[in-house]
């Protein structure tokens, strides 16, 4: 991960002459990390690619409103989380789509995704994750896969550390129960 001075980066992002080049550096540094946040929510690569583009286009469009009070990475995480949830909710709000249909839709997209090479156990694990409410799934992903600190997750999703610990604990229990049932 590239090291940079946040203050200097902020100045470059706010200066019309250096803004574009600075933003390219932001994309280079954070695109992979943001991709995995999005991909683990939307599951298919094509959808993740679309959502990731939206994340950076929104960041670019609103870069003037970023004043550097929070870390740039935290701000980007929040946009990525927001865009991912919006994408899922938009699918669920489709008049002919029930919540179960939306989840099975995500799963069937995953199964036909050429960029998923998990075995049956991995597929079943993804089925278990889809039984979690969206926010709980997000928290689980950030803790389990990214091994983030609860304090950092709290800054992104706006939930207290205590509530996040409880949420993660319940998520693990639900996943275990699902896997035992389907074993």
């Amino acid at each position, binding site marked *: 991960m590239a090291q940079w001075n946040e203050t200097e980066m902020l100045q470059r992002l706010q200066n019309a002459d250096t803004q574009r080049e600075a933003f390219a550096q932001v994309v280079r540094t954070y695109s992979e990390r943001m991709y995995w946040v999005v991909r683990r929510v939307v599951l298919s690569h094509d959808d993740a690619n679309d959502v990731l583009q939206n994340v950076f286009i929104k960041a670019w469009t609103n870069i003037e409103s970023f004043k550097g009070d929070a870390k740039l990475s935290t701000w980007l995480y929040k946009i990525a989380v927001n865009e991912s949830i919006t994408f899922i909710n938009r699918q669920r709000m489709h008049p002919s789509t029930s919540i179960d249909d939306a989840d099975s839709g995500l799963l069937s997209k995953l199964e036909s995704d050429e960029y998923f090479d998990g075995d049956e156990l991995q597929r079943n694990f993804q089925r278990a994750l889809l039984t979690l409410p969206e926010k709980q799934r997000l928290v689980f992903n950030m803790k389990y896969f990214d091994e983030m600190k609860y304090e*950092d997750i709290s800054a992104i999703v706006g939930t207290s550390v205590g509530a996040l610990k409880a949420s993660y604990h319940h998520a693990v229990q639900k996943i275990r129960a699902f896997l035992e049932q389907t074993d």
Partner: protein
Amino acid sequence: MNNIDNFKKKNPFTVPENYFEEFEKKLMEQLPEKTSEPKKQKFTTIKKVIISLVATAAVMAGVMFMIKPTTQEAVTVAEATNTETQEVVFTSSEDEDFYQFLEDDATRKEATSGYYVSL
């Protein structure tokens, strides 16, 4: 397999070859050019709308006082004008305000926790 730690060991998700390198290039090509003028105009417009509404509310309140309403009527008018102003302010907020809110919210959380996202 009930030990869920095992699922971390192999990432079943893959990406096309050179995806991230190409993503940066493609994204930068489609980013719109920045223009600073519309932003100023937008805020000026919002301010004008708010000022107009406040002025209208003040005139309405003045008229209501002149015709000496009952206490209950006065409260109703005050509530109505207040609600109207709030609605306009909220419907005027756009993405930019939302993402400023996200940053402010993140700042509050970081300040509370004393931690930052580790990179």
